């Protein structure tokens, strides 16, 4: 027999103005199982709360209904009050008599009756409520950061500087990412390398950071606070413990004609190589696709010359597993390949290049040591054309979204060109100039007004070669769609930013969701911009969508804070509003029949398989569903789906909801 207490709040006049609170309390007092019922001016006030507490003690109440404002307002308050009086907080329910009743109805019999019915329903619910305890999940105090670009570097440093351990893995031979390829950066034109390199070094030297380059995520198991990551360490063919990075091997390697990824194919590298001078770690790897030994079985020149015998051929990939508490995904982006606008002649004409290639030309560490020389003959182009939106905002041929960074980097490119080639002429074909951001618009104005960059609003129809010149045919829509034709020495395409190849696979490995463009999806576009739907996995940088450096760094620091706040706890404390699979006496053990059709319904992959084994023989008797309380968020979709009603949701159980519904209809 229950001993329920009902406490009706007047909320000053807010409820009592239209609801007869005394009567609600009186009628509630008549209900079976209600031991004590009263009304009071301000239940949430200190005297109000102590009224509840004393009643709980005096009448040994085992359930409490507070008829007041919305539970979204004061549920926490009153539940705390209850637990202070020794009653399990989840034995307290809030009847929403203000937002859902007094404020939306006129003063009338009907309004009071409605209030009484709301209370009646909840009395029957709370009779069936079970005491619940918050769920504690232990946390492994270590983070995994995937991707060594500026986002990964920033996130790793921030986490590490908060005293937490970090594992940073990078699939390439060096960290640095796309930012290390850039020359100057908008809108300040400070040198990318100069601001990035120190951080790369800091990462390498930080006591809290373990760096694995040439490494990829193989498998991710577990759940928030308790992940187990399997990492593939791709064989570098060089023993870094012995290598002194003297560089002899790279100078002696006979195979010198391999297009350098770092230089976007504008420069060459050897098959044993360090991607770029400031690489971290500054030690070589052997590119098996091009190494003569790996391809033809002979050569081994590098190992002959290596003074420390660091070269180790035919070493298989290694796998390590790491226990971690949180993950930050910072795998970055890629630039759109150029084959679906053949009319611009990329690949056909040497002097049609991508923006990223231009970065390398303009970079002091680039193939031309920072001089703008065109790839075909090394001449300095006197006339240069930049084409914005190559693929972006082009649902027909490219991608529908705006790549966001192109407007700014194109302005920067033109500006750099003008600074380096004083008598040169630069033209930019654009759709719109999107320069939202601190000092961005000013930057673009400078390009136009101070550096005399010629902005033409219009699309380029095609680019073709005519006696050594690149003819760029387009229109100027501001001059009434008048055709424009420019004889250029070089054309730079602002190719769109797209998701990295393999992003989809990675997302599936980690059970995070991704959008139609394979960019990773944040849990909420506004309020959870660095979270994913999978608790404990966070995002930062251009793997979410094209982002510029300031945004990326901000997001990285944001993600870092999320990780740190997670790792700073010994246990995760979670609301016990989670689903549970019933258990019963053998030989049934549970009414769950293990059809596992619920697996696909759970957005959080919280439904696992549990084998019930015979104690003696160890033979599996039955495999049933088990819900991981660390992952379950308590939506209850599996509960109403389960055919045999073997899953129930704590706090909103079948019995509770059924009782509430039938009771308020049969008062």
């Amino acid at each position, binding site marked *: 027999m229950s001993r329920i207490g009902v406490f009706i709040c007047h909320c000053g006049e807010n409820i009592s103005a239209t609801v007869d609170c005394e009567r609600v309390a009186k009628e509630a007092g008549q209900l*079976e199982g209600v031991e004590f019922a009263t009304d009071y001016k301000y239940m949430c006030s200190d005297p109000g709360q102590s009224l509840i507490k004393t009643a709980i003690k005096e009448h040994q109440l085992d359930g409490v209904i507070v008829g007041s404002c919305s539970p979204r307002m004061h549920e926490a308050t009153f539940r705390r009050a209850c637990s202070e009086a020794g009653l399990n907080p989840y034995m307290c329910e809030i009847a929403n008599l203000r937002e859902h009743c007094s404020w939306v109805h006129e003063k009338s019999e009907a309004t009071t009756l409605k209030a009484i019915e709301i209370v009646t329903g909840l009395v*029957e619910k709370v009779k069936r409520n079970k005491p619940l305890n918050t769920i504690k999940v232990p946390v492994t105090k270590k983070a995994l950061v995937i991707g060594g670009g500026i986002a990964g570097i920033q996130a790793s440093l921030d986490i590490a500087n908060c005293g937490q351990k970090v594992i940073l893995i990078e699939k390439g031979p060096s960290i640095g990412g796309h930012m290390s390829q850039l020359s100057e950066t908008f809108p300040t034109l400070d040198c990318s390398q100069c601001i990035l390199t120190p951080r790369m070094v800091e990462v390498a030297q930080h006591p809290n950071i373990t760096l694995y380059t040439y490494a990829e995520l193989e498998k991710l198991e577990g759940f928030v606070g308790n992940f187990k990551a399997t990492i593939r360490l791709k064989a570098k063919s060089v023993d870094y413990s012995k290598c002194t990075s003297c560089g002899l091997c790279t100078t002696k390697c006979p195979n010198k004609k391999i297009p350098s990824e770092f230089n976007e194919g504008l420069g060459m590298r050897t098959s044993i190589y360090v991607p770029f001078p400031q690489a971290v770690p500054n030690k070589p790897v052997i590119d098996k696709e091009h190494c003569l030994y790996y391809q033809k079985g002979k050569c081994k020149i590098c190992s002959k010359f290596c003074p420390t015998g660091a070269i180790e051929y035919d070493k298989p990939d290694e796998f390590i597993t790491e226990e971690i508490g949180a993950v930050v995904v910072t795998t970055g982006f890629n630039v759109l390949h150029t084959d679906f606008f053949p009319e611009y002649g990329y690949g056909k004409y040497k002097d049609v290049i991508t923006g990223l290639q231009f970065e390398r030309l303009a970079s002091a560490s680039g193939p031309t040591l920072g001089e703008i020389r065109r790839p075909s003959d090394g001449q300095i182009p006197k006339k240069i054309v930049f084409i914005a939106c190559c693929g972006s905002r082009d649902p027909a041929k490219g991608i529908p979204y705006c790549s966001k960074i192109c407007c700014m980097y194109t302005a920067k490119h033109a500006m750099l060109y003008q600074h380096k080639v004083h008598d040169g002429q630069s033209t930019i074909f654009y759709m719109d100039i999107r320069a939202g951001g601190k000092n961005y618009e000013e930057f673009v104005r400078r390009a136009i007004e101070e550096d005399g960059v010629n902005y033409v609003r219009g699309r380029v129809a095609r680019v073709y070669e005519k006696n050594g010149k690149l003819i760029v045919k387009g229109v100027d829509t501001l001059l009434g769609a008048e055709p424009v034709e420019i004889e250029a020495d070089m054309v730079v395409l602002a190719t769109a930013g797209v998701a990295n190849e393999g992003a989809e696979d990675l997302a599936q490995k980690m059970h995070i969701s991704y959008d139609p463009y394979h960019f990773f999806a944040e849990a909420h576009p506004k309020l959870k911009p660095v979270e994913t739907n999978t608790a404990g996995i966070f995002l930062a940088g251009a793997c979410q969508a094209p982002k510029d450096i300031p945004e990326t760094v901000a997001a990285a620091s944001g993600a870092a804070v999320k990780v740190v706040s997670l790792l700073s706890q010994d246990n995760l404390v979670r609301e016990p509003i989670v689903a549970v699979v019933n258990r019963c006496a053998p030989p049934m053990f549970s009414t769950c029949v293990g059809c596992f059709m619920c697996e696909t319904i759970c957005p959080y992959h919280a439904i696992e398989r549990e084998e019930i084994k015979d104690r003696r023989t160890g033979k599996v008797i039955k495999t049933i569903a088990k819900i991981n309380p660390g992952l379950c968020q308590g939506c209850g979709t599996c509960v109403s789906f389960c055919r045999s009603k073997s899953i129930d949701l704590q706090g909103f159980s079948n019995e509770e909801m059924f009782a509430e519904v039938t009771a308020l209809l049969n008062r």
Partner: protein
Amino acid sequence: MERFIIQTNQLNSWLKKIIESVPRVLAPVNDGTKTEFRQIKTVDEVAYDTLTTTSSVKAAAFPESETLFSYRKEGKNTELTQVSPEAYPETVVWRARPCDAIGFAPLSGIFNWDYKDSLYNARHAKLTVIAFSCNTCDDYCFCTSVDGGPGSTKGSDILVTQLNKEEALVEILTEKGTKMKDLCPDCFKEADQNIDKESVLAKIPVKFSKEQVHDFLSKAFDSPVWKQQSARCLGCGACAYVCPTCACFDIQEEAHGSRGRRLRCWDSCGFSMFTLQTSGNNPRPTQATRWRQRILHKFSYMPDRIGEYGCTGCGRCSRACPVDMNIKEHLISIASISHE
């Protein structure tokens, strides 16, 4: 026992009288592909063209579900309302079959074995059974093997036997029967004592004797026959629900917030949950053990306790079974084992 002759064309006028004077008259009514006992308001509703109904007539005295008491909560006090058997309506069953009528003996036995079930007894007391002898039968019939017969009078208040197109023999067997006859005295004329009704009855060969089955059962608890016979049994309740003698019931609560009722409703020993205990233990864990229980109960426990066999040979269970668990066939094989 009085014997009368009624003209076939008079049957309806008699029935008409009965319908007029009795609040509830049940008779076989064609319903889709099936025939079932339903309350009739006119004489034309009766189906005479079918051998028998899908369900037996037992519901007339032992409904699928009936209220034991109802309650209403007023705040903290609860008001109980008992059912009043006086309110049960006088009921006549028209054109039951001898294998229906005969079933009331075991039913009454069960409901009065130790505890006297006032609800059943009240309904049964108000029930008059007017049975019609069978002049046809089908493969499932075996009443003659369990001491019934197409012309058996046991359990009936009146037995009507169609002698030929024109006339039928009416045997008045009880007081209740006489009452019904008296509703339409001029329909009946004294029957000639040497009328032989047997000649018009269906010929149903005796396939086994229930005693053979009974004897075998006394030593057959662990026989492999149960598993063999029950292998295809799906464990539904069809057989029990259509059976004229199955009397297992469950007690249920119908609760609607502040009001509700306690009911008794049919249950079946064939359901796996029937004997499931809270501890998780199930004394009849397999369909084989449940099938064994069904046969033992009907052919061993009941005769031993109440002197009545729990089978009338009507064959309804076999007709209703989704997997053709033909009880006649099974009993024959059991009886033959007992010979060996």
